[in-house]
């Protein structure tokens, strides 16, 4: 008899379990895991499947000819998609604000005066109160001598704005202590002849006058109405060590609320509506009240409308179903902070705007795995069968974890969706898919930390942090210290880094405290996985009560995460439930559950000869 392979094509990975079957005995030979090629359920998957099969065979020192039967999973017909919508935006017209954090501003204090180009300073009359604007064409010696000369003539130089990184150098050479903001890249956009205020806070503090609306009002003598307008400016400057606000006659700064659109949920309570701006808790309340959801729509012509249509179209292309028969069955919303470039800022100012991250899940009647099986059959000299519902197979596989027994609930933490299934002692199964998993965590991390490269967000999710404190040691996020015999590279020095596998350090280009990055990462994982685990388990547990469950086994790629399983174990322990990461066949960890289940199920049927194959 030939070899038997179970193949599980998932959203992110394709897994294979390889076994030899003799009578009723199943002897597992090995497994393999590769990235899924193409969207799950499409013929493009074949390349990944063949690669995974040949890897598993190679490891077992067997050849492709020995393969007798390949069992494909009846893939869960769900596709997830994620999107992020900013709901507020700060717009500065007529550049009125510079708020940024150069590492080394010069001087100290608050200075108010009219902006004057350094070259024009010799022509300013005695007694005038000015703020010097210093382009990088002047070196620090020149700049300081021009300012000193003006001061000695009786000009009241109250502060300076520099283009180069010269703030400290100039401040050290002045006869009078004034605040200097430096590294203002687009200095030519600073309006001249206008009243401006420069503030530099002492080390370890942040600006106090310019981050306070009444402070700005006092400096510029604003009316109550005008003071309302400067609130977004003050808000954007909070936390900076140095800042400049220039008052221009036509200047206007406003916080704009972007119409992110409305969401319509059709479900148990009819059609409910909510604006995206209302935030995650309002949206999730809608989802909870509407369960079971029949469909979700976004307002046409808005961002959220576009997102819902995109998911629907992908699913329709994949299944061949008409677009109006593709339904969104679940949605997860999480509030996020989005650092966004201030429109009209001149030193690359960022403002923390609020936004909502959304994950949606589309369910079709089934994913066309038969078509995939047909294409696969042409590639390999073996029988190919589509066998077994994914959730069923996952429980069978999970049951090979030492210490488990029926009734058993499993949580499959994937990339696209979080799935829960519950198998009773009689073998009957409850199953639910929830929108939002690893991909959503990546998106939240990327948006909250302002990261553009998705690979970096994935790594931040996957590895613990450390700070390189010297060429020979790093401090881990738990406060422990690791020493290195060989000096760490200069590109790592002083930086935050990720402790990747095999002791590799990956430097991060983030100017943030380690605590902040850690908090964002952990919050993203909690908001997605812990929320979804509870949501999912409530749906499958007897009488909707999570406390009725005894054992919950975590499987899937995200169950490999270094902290997600602990977060879930902790929360479920409060409900009196034993939960932990699975260990498929006692060797695979949380991976390979479905592939293993497929092999076991097929072997069982083979013994009863009801597969028509020998």
């Amino acid at each position, binding site marked *: 008899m030939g070899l038997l392979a179970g193949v599980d094509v998932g959203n992110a990975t394709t897994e294979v379990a390889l076994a030899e079957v003799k009578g009723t005995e199943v002897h597992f030979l090995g497994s393999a895991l590769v990235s899924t090629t193409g969207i799950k359920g499409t013929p493009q998957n074949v390349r990944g499947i063949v690669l995974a099969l040949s890897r598993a065979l190679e490891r077992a020192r067997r050849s492709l000819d020995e393969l007798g039967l390949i069992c494909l999973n009846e893939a869960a017909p769900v596709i997830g998609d994620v999107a992020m919508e900013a709901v507020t935006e700060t717009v500065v017209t007529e550049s009125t604000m510079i708020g940024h954090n150069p*590492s*080394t501003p010069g001087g100290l204090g608050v200075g108010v005066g009219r902006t004057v180009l350094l070259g024009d300073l010799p022509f300013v009359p005695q007694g005038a109160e000015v703020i010097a604007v210093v382009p*990088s064409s002047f070196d*620090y010696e020149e700049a300081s001598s021009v300012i000193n000369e003006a001061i000695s003539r009786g000009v009241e130089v109250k502060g300076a704005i520099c283009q*180069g*990184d*010269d*703030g*400290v*150098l100039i401040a*050290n050479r002045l006869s009078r202590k004034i605040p200097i903001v430096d590294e203002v890249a687009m200095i030519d956009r600073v309006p001249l002849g206008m009243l401006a205020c420069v503030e530099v806070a002492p080390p370890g503090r942040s600006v106090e006058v310019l981050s306070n609306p009444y402070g700005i009002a006092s400096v510029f003598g604003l009316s109550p109405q005008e003071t309302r307008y400067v609130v977004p400016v003050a808000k954007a400057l909070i936390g900076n060590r140095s800042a400049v606000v220039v008052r221009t006659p036509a200047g206007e700064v406003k916080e704009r609320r972007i119409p992110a659109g409305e969401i319509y949920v059709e479900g148990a309570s009819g059609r409910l509506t909510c604006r995206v701006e209302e935030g995650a808790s309002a949206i999730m309340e809608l989802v909870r009240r509407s369960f079971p959801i029949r469909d979700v729509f976004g307002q046409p012509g808005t961002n959220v409308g576009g997102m819902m249509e995109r998911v629907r179209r992908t699913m329709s292309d994949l299944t061949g179903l008409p677009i109006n028969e593709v339904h969104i069955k679940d949605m997860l919303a999480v509030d996020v902070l989005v650092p966004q470039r201030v429109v009209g800022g001149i030193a690359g100012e960022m403002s923390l705007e609020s936004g909502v991250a959304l994950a949606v899940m589309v369910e079709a009647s089934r994913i066309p795995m038969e078509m995939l099986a047909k294409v696969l059959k042409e590639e390999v000299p073996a029988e190919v069968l589509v066998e077994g519902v994914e959730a069923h197979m996952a429980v069978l596989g999970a049951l090979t974890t030492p210490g488990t027994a029926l009734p058993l609930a499993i949580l499959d933490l994937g990339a696209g969706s979080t799935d829960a299934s519950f198998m009773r002692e009689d073998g009957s199964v409850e199953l639910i898919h929830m929108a939002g998993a690893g991909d959503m965590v990546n998106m939240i991390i990327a948006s909250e930390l302002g990261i553009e490269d998705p690979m970096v967000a994935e790594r931040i999710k996957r590895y613990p942090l450390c700070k390189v*404190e*010297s*060429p*020979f040691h790093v401090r881990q996020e738990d406060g422990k210290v690791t020493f290195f015999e060989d*000096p760490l*590279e*200069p*590109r790592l*020095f*002083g*930086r935050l880094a990720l402790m990747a596998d095999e002791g590799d350090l990956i430097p991060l280009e983030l100017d943030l405290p380690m605590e902040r990055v850690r908090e964002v990462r952990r919050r993203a994982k909690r908001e997605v996985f812990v929320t979804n685990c509870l949501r999912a388990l409530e749906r499958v547990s007897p009488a909707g009560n999570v406390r009725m469950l005894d054992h919950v086994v975590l499987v899937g790629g995200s169950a490999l995460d270094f902290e997600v399983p602990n977060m879930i174990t902790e929360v479920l322990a409060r409900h009196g439930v034993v939960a932990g990461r699975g260990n498929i066949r006692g060797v695979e960890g949380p991976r390979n559950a479905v592939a293993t289940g497929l092999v076991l199920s097929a072997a069982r049927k083979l013994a009863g000869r009801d597969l028509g194959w020998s």
Partner: protein
Amino acid sequence: MLRGISSDRPSIALLVDPGVRDLEGVVRAVGAGCEEEGVPLSWDLRSGRAAELAGLASEASRLGVGVGFDGAGWAIALSSMKGRPPYMAGTVGGCADLRWVGQNAARLAKGVPLVLRAPTGSGGGGGRAEGILELDPSLVRTIVAEVLKAMGLR
């Protein structure tokens, strides 16, 4: 032992080979880099190559950070790495590069991330900056070690 470098005052130490042209400009540039970061610099003259000067300077510095310059090349050494090659080294194109060297020496003393390129547009070209990184001896050592390991020679 080194006249200009006080052993009490916490400062970065710079040793320059007496043969360099525009000695004052060199000290001014390295000094400006340190000053902007708020770290004092003390300096002296000594004959030798950049790496060797940087090593000596690091031992004289109370902050444990030494800079050496011999006219063509610069090096930054740390006293904690005594007996090893300098932590960073390269060749110099102009004053802007030396200011960048001073800035990084100061950042090493402060324990904050280094600026990994010479400032562009103010004398130091971007191309040259890359040259500095290419010559980073620790990187070269790492690559050689990796190649030897891959060839099974080590």
